[in-house]
């Protein structure tokens, strides 16, 4: 049972095509899988919610939807869907803080006519007013109805983002704000498209069973059809996020069946930095997403049954559909460390928060031992190879690697993790992780009662479904005794209806 297991990856050809009359910064990444009947196209545009003009938060998202759920200059959205339907082909958009990605997937039987539509959506979108109204309302409903009232976990994460990045270009949701969306006109969308969807603002990738010459075709009539940016001074420098001072708390009050908690702070590194990979190991040990590997999950759910799951992250993370793997093509220059505590019964919320901070502080103080380091490193080297079981996701990570200026992400994990020592990891923990200056966002039904418990100075209460042993009681005492230094000047209580109205709020 102890033999070492090594995963191997499917061999695929990864090529860069940079041909034709294209800008020097533009190239098409080809990932050929000749036997595959499927073809994926990903065009990553270097525009995100950070590019939304003041007062028009949501303009990037709305422009993206006008492409993903709109027509071309020759086809209305209704006509376009009729053509795509029998092929079961799809065109979707992902819009994030810094990039927007248009993802096309089709059986190669229909690649040629599909590609023409896909291309026209990007280079010559229709911008019908009906589509504009519908897409704007969809985004607005996503904030007013879905985020505020239909999903407490996502609400907690977005509240953390808004709180942590207060005053920073990352502050608004990727959908924008309620008032920002209301102020956007169709003309704004047209102008934004002209400004942002330029030849030198694209990263393009194709994967699967595409024919010879397809990369050249894309470079000629997709890239070549877009204008060069007028102002290539390009992406603005991001300011540093605000400095956290103690435990800063935002309590979002709403009717809630349980309490959702998110904790975080900015970190200075991303996938381009050596220490990111050292921190990957530390993070996996603390809270690998949707596994029982992390201490948070083992101690909070497994041992105590406090909730359904407890995880941590060292970059913005969205689960890719029904998988447990990170969604590609949401890269960001600035990242955050975060802990996600899934809803806990209200009466255990104060304890759950304290335990999460306690576990983080334990990691910072003690680091990993050699055995945990080895086990976690080997796990990540193998597990990360499962990220790329589909060519579409492999292509997505390849484009992310271009964004960060690194080798292919999965290869980076292998080579960089293989070189690390436990001392490297523990040094990175000390350099980048801490448990004193944290932003905490809590969604709960009685904010005042929770704040009173948190600020009382008394140990938090906790109750379990079963009798617990002496060891767990002793461990609980250590958790209860762990100090939480809330900064009362940085504590806010807001009602959910005040969230995401505009950037002056909450």
């Amino acid at each position: 049972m102890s033999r070492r297991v090594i995963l191997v990856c499917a061999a695929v050809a990864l090529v860069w095509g940079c041909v034709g009359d294209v800008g020097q910064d533009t190239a098409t990444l080809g990932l050929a899988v000749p036997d595959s009947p499927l073809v994926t196209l990903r065009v990553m545009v270097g525009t995100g919610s950070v590019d939304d003009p003041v007062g028009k938060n949501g303009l990037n998202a709305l422009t993206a939807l006008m492409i993903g759920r709109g027509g071309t200059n020759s086809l209305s959205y209704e006509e376009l869907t009729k053509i795509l339907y029998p092929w079961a082909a799809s065109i979707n958009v992902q819009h994030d803080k810094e990039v927007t990605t248009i993802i096309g997937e089709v059986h190669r039987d229909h690649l040629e006519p599909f590609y023409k539509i896909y291309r026209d959506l990007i280079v010559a979108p229709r911008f019908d007013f009906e589509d504009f109204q519908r897409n704007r309302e969809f985004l607005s409903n996503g904030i007013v109805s879905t985020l505020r009232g239909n999903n407490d976990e996502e609400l907690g994460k977005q509240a953390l983002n808004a709180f942590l990045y207060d005053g920073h270009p990352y502050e608004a949701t990727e959908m924008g704000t309620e008032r920002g969306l209301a102020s956007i006109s169709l003309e704004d969308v047209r102008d934004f498209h002209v400004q942002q969807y330029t030849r030198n603002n694209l990263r393009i990738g194709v994967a699967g069973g595409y024919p010879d010459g397809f990369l050249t075709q894309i470079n000629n009539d997709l890239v070549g059809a877009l204008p060069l940016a007028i102002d290539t001074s390009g992406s603005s420098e991001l300011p540093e996020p605000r400095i956290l001072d103690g435990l800063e708390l935002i309590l979002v009050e709403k009717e809630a069946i349980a309490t959702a908690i998110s904790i975080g702070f900015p970190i200075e590194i991303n996938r381009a930095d050596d220490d990111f990979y050292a921190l990957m190991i530390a993070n996996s040990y603390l809270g690998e997403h949707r596994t029982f590997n992390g201490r948070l999950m083992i101690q909070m759910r497994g041992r105590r049954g406090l909730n359904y799951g407890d995880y941590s992250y060292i970059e913005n993370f969205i689960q890719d559909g029904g998988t447990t793997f990170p969604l590609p093509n949401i890269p960001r220059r600035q990242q955050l460390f975060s802990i996600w505590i899934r809803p806990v019964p209200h009466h255990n919320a104060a304890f759950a928060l304290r335990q999460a901070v306690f576990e983080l502080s334990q990691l910072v103080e003690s680091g990993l031992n050699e055995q945990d380091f080895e086990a976690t490193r080997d796990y990540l080297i193998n597990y990360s190879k499962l990220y790329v079981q589909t060519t579409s996701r492999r292509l997505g990570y390849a484009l992310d690697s271009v964004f960060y200026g690194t080798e292919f992400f999965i290869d980076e994990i292998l080579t960089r993790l293989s070189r690390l020592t436990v001392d490297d990891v523990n040094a990175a923990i000390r350099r980048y992780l801490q448990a004193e200056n944290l932003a905490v966002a809590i969604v709960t039904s009685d904010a005042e009662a929770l704040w009173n418990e948190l600020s009382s100075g008394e140990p938090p209460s906790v109750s379990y479904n079963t009798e617990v042993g002496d060891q767990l009681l002793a461990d609980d005492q250590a958790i209860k005794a762990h100090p939480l230094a809330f900064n009362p000047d940085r504590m806010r209580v807001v009602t959910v209806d005040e969230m995401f109205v505009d950037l002056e709020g909450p």
Partner: protein
Amino acid sequence: MTKSWVYPMVVLSAWLSVSVVLEAQGDEDIFPFPVSVFELDNGLTVVGVDYDSPGIVAYYTVVRTGSRNEVEPGFSGYAHFFEHMMFRGTETYSTEAYNEEIKRLGADSNAFTTDDWTAYHTVASADALETIMELESDRFLNLSYSVDDYRTEAGAILGEYNLNFSNPVSLLREKVRELAFVSHPYGHTTIGLLEDIQAMPAHYDYSLEFYSRYYRPDNCFVIVVGDFDPTELQQLAVSYYGAWEPGDYEPNIPVEPRQTDERVARISWPNSTLPLLMLAFHVPAFSDQAIDMPALDVLSQLLFSQNAPLYQQLYLRDQTVDVLSGGAVDHRDPPLFEIIARVTKPAQVALVQDAILTEIERFKTEPVDEEVLADTKSAMRYSFARGLDSPGPIAETLAHYLQLTGDIETVNRIYRLYDLVTADDIRRVVNTYFSAANRTVVLLTEVDR
């Protein structure tokens, strides 16, 4: 010791064979990969799918038990709860030892429960196949957990319920099920009712009974997809599962009486939400022999795909909904054909409901255009092919059809039936199942604040 057979499908590369199927149709099999099947003496079926995924295998263990089997009052949600208990260890592998092994393998491992079945799935290195089988067979044969572990896990279940029910669709679906069924366990959702979840910590003994009833080889099957040797798979299965004792428990699942009157309810949601409208109609159980459910699957496309006139009217032109979908998930017993609409303006709920019902009425009289029907079948076949992009989804697709009938050929048979659906079939099933008397309607709206 075992009986086995191999389906000699295409010898071409796996991906290429998908194309062959889509172009040829007719009598061709929709499932494009070579499949081997064998059954152990104890009744365990083991399926191997040869798929070109160098170095990787998906390993699915499927129990043909879900919330459908929760026939005793007070035990809703139990199949799902028991799925959680399967991660609570054995005498050989404690929870910690099991998790350490999964971590050592670098495996992606989890489980899910539905109305009809429960699946335990692992995707990992191909050379870990024997280790996975050792771990999986051990917990299926030798599960052993304490009362304290049992009660602790109940907290995780409550946590899962809590996160699900911050979404109003969960409440809406729970109400529709409660109204539409008076006898059958489909009257509750898989997560179960809150009061039953809260009572779970007291039911340790029942958990042992549940394990004894359903976690038996003749009620389970194993699917392995990817890079493995079929002969080795068979030898390993005999070695690790051979001692598993078959069971003889037959659940007495009530037959739902025919609904004779429309059932209507209105419920409120304490937070911001757009109105959610759900209409549900009883439809037949899955069959790979009868045309009705395939015809209803085609109908769901004709009504609610992005290409459908109703969708284009309500979503694109009138913009009175921002979510509209409908259909029936394949079930072993008669399920509901559920239609859900999120209405963009509260005053337009009646208008949206009328539009949906009017379109259904149109299908009762007007024959479906043959070209539209052909496009719909094409979309369904290409959509199926697109889903087969890695070992896990391939295993899950096959498991879905296999759990319904126990027959490996079902997946191919059902797609042949889709090809046979005619405009007359569509008109007949709409007339048969979409009556007011067979309808349940629930509207969820934001509470007045």
